[in-house]
């Protein structure tokens, strides 16, 4: 009996002694394989790369040249960079931009930091799910006219690109298997590759996450705790590594495309938004989609003022006041109404109490999301200037 007991003791001790180390292994089916060197920190998932437009450095550089090229418009006066300026994190400083033929757009120009991670593109459209699809809109839109490329001038515009010697080399590098054909499809894919490569993960917030305990001030840390608190609920729509709930990366198998009504308008008390900017409703015609827009990333938000889909909120201070009130009251005019009672308003916009100190801390936190490298790096800058 005792012998049996001893044997079992020996067994147990053998198990302990011979035990190997714990381990975790991954067979990721090459998810991180890419011909492109993304400037994304390790541990952060990579964006999706479409099968028909894999990322390459050559396409990125070609797209960069096209992005900053005013010749890529009907009257040769507008480039993508006209409304997407690097110093503003690729947004602009206008409430709404103006097209190449002076038509005023109805929606604010969004910043392009990490737009590769957007589940849908543009402010409120569940059908624009790739950059390639989105780029068609500014190039070819008729109402309002943006770049103003149409059936009449598209060949002329294309010829300008063909005639530029710099492009001959760039198209050949980007599309060697096609012999460097200049076509709209190739142009769009290159611009998409450039924009997809505009990644931003070097803000003080990111540095703090990676271990630099000096990167964020105490005020910023307090603001961070407020941001992620149940009191403010900011993180519900602006959470995750990209501060937006409409986010997609290549490790995801099922994706939401959320859109939210935050109570900016309530025209005639029936929840209506101004006719030209009714958000998701314009696409779906579903009454409960009135005024729903995509929650944009808050990275670099300091630089993309004014805010909201129509640029109608001027500063971060006003933004916080707006959310604290639970909606916006418009006293007079054709858009009068109390947005706090918009029937389609998202359930998380309930308003909250906030002291002046807390508001200041929250703003300092939002400023800590500004990535100084992103807005100054030569890699994303206008290549035509340096030439």
């Amino acid at each position, binding site marked *: 009996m005792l012998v049996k007991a001893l044997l079992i*003791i020996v067994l*147990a001790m053998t198990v302990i002694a011979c035990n*190997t180390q714990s381990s975790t292994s991954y*067979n990721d089916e090459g*998810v991180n394989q890419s011909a492109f060197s993304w400037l994304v920190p390790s541990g952060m998932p990579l964006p999706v790369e479409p099968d028909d437009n894999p990322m390459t450095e050559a396409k990125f550089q070609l797209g960069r040249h096209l992005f900053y090229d005013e010749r890529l418009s009907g009257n040769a006066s507008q480039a993508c960079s006209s409304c997407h300026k690097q110093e503003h994190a690729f947004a602009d400083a206008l409430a709404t931009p103006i097209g190449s033929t002076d038509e005023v757009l109805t929606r604010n120009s969004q910043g392009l930091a990490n737009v590769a991670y957007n589940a849908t593109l543009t402010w409120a459209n569940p059908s624009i799910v790739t950059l390639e699809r989105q780029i068609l809109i500014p190039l070819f839109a008729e109402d309002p006219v943006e770049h103003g490329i149409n059936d009449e001038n598209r060949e002329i515009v294309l010829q300008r690109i063909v005639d530029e010697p710099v492009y001959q080399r760039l198209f050949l590098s980007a599309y060697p298997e096609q012999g460097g054909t200049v076509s709209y499809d190739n142009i769009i894919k290159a611009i998409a590759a450039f924009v997809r490569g505009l990644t931003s993960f070097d803000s003080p917030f990111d540095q703090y996450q990676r271990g630099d305990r000096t990167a964020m001030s105490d005020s910023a840390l307090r603001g961070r705790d407020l941001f992620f608190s149940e009191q403010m609920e900011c993180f519900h729509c602006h959470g995750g590594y990209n501060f937006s709930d409409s986010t997609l990366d290549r490790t995801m198998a099922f994706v939401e495309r959320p859109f939210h009504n935050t109570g900016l308008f309530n025209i005639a008390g029936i929840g209506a938004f101004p006719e030209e900017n009714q958000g998701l409703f314009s696409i779906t015609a579903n009454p409960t989609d009135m005024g729903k827009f995509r929650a944009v990333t808050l990275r670099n938000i300091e630089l993309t003022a004014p805010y909201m889909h129509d640029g109608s909120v001027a500063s971060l201070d006003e933004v916080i006041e707006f959310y604290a009130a639970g909606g916006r009251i418009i006293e007079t005019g054709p858009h009068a109404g109390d947005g706090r009672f918009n029937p389609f308003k998202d359930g998380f916009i309930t308003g909250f109490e906030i002291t002046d100190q807390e508001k200041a801390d929250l703003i300092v936190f939002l400023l800590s999301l500004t990535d100084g490298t992103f807005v100054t790096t030569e890699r994303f800058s206008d290549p035509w200037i340096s030439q």
Partner: protein
Amino acid sequence: MRITHHRFVSTVLFLALPSWAWGHNEINLTPNTAVDAAMVVNYRSDSSVEKGRPWYVTGAMMGGEAVPASEDFSVDDLFITVTHVGEDNVYGLIKLASHQGSDAAFEHAWLGYRLVSKERSFLNIEAGRMAGLFSPANLQHSDSRLMSEANLALDVFLGRQYIDNGLRLLWGNDRGLSLGVETWQGEAFPATSGDGGGASDVFFKYQNISRNVSWSVGGWYMQAKAASRSDTRYESGHSHGVVVDDIEAYWFDGDTSLYGVHLDVQWQVSSRLTFGLDTEWLWQKVDGSIRDETRIAKLESEANGGWIEPSISFQRHTVGLRYEQMVLNNEFSGVAGEALAALAHLNNTGHNPTRSTLVYRYQIQPTLALRAELLSDKSLPQREERWLVGLIWEKNLWRLKKE
């Protein structure tokens, strides 16, 4: 002296197994009704995690009620048990329990019936809400266990204690052998109930009591199925005081297999001195998929863990040492493997959780004991030391025995 030592042995054995488990494994069920109560109050110098923070042993999916021991004063256990053995071979047990200050709940509520009663063997059927009988350690709480903190392997693999709604068939003979099979609804970690869920196990135990040595050895195998299993320790409405908002939810679908072998030896050297050894080792295999709101990956795990616990009892003093170790291996397939591993705290790159506990216990009276413990806890990557002082009170409040 003799009387004392017999009483002492029974006391020790009483400590090792709850009375009802001891009682109904006998060939003869003696009709009686009893109400027992127990309470354990501890003071700890520290806790393995900060107050309000969740506890994850990196490398294993956790669940059930495996929450870390509390810092400061804590009523770790408080319960009342009512057992009844009727004259008609029917018996039952109800236990109302509160752990670490939680609300009292019916932890056990089950009925048993002796189907077959022969001179030398019996067959029982038991059903209700009960703890799995496959491992003796599964029946222990900090009152009946030498150490105050639950065994790490049980915490990780079984969510501290496997208590579920189920059915059991138990066969035993007068030579100390018992065999059992249990089938469960799956309301306990690592199973889930409903479609795609459920659990079952088989076990055997051999017990031998002679004049100086009493020992038991046993083995068991359990399989559990889960569908959309989440870590219910930290969910809204049931969060053990942890702020759950920034805890990202994940779900597991798949099968868990567990098996274990255990040994318990009590060697009474003299009337005053007893050496003891208690050890159990568990192996776990997991095969399924893990997902969060947007990602999914295939997961295969192999893990093992257990403890060795030698002890010495001299008169009213007992000193014990428990060494615990776990090895956790996980294999992910799919593009989302790394992201999900990080989210579910499964990315263990070489740290084997271990823990050593040194305990001293002094039986002040038959119903009251004092315990002091010293722990060196390396279940998390940072080594932590803490100590404990506590009181254990157990009493049979009332007994009615029909002769």
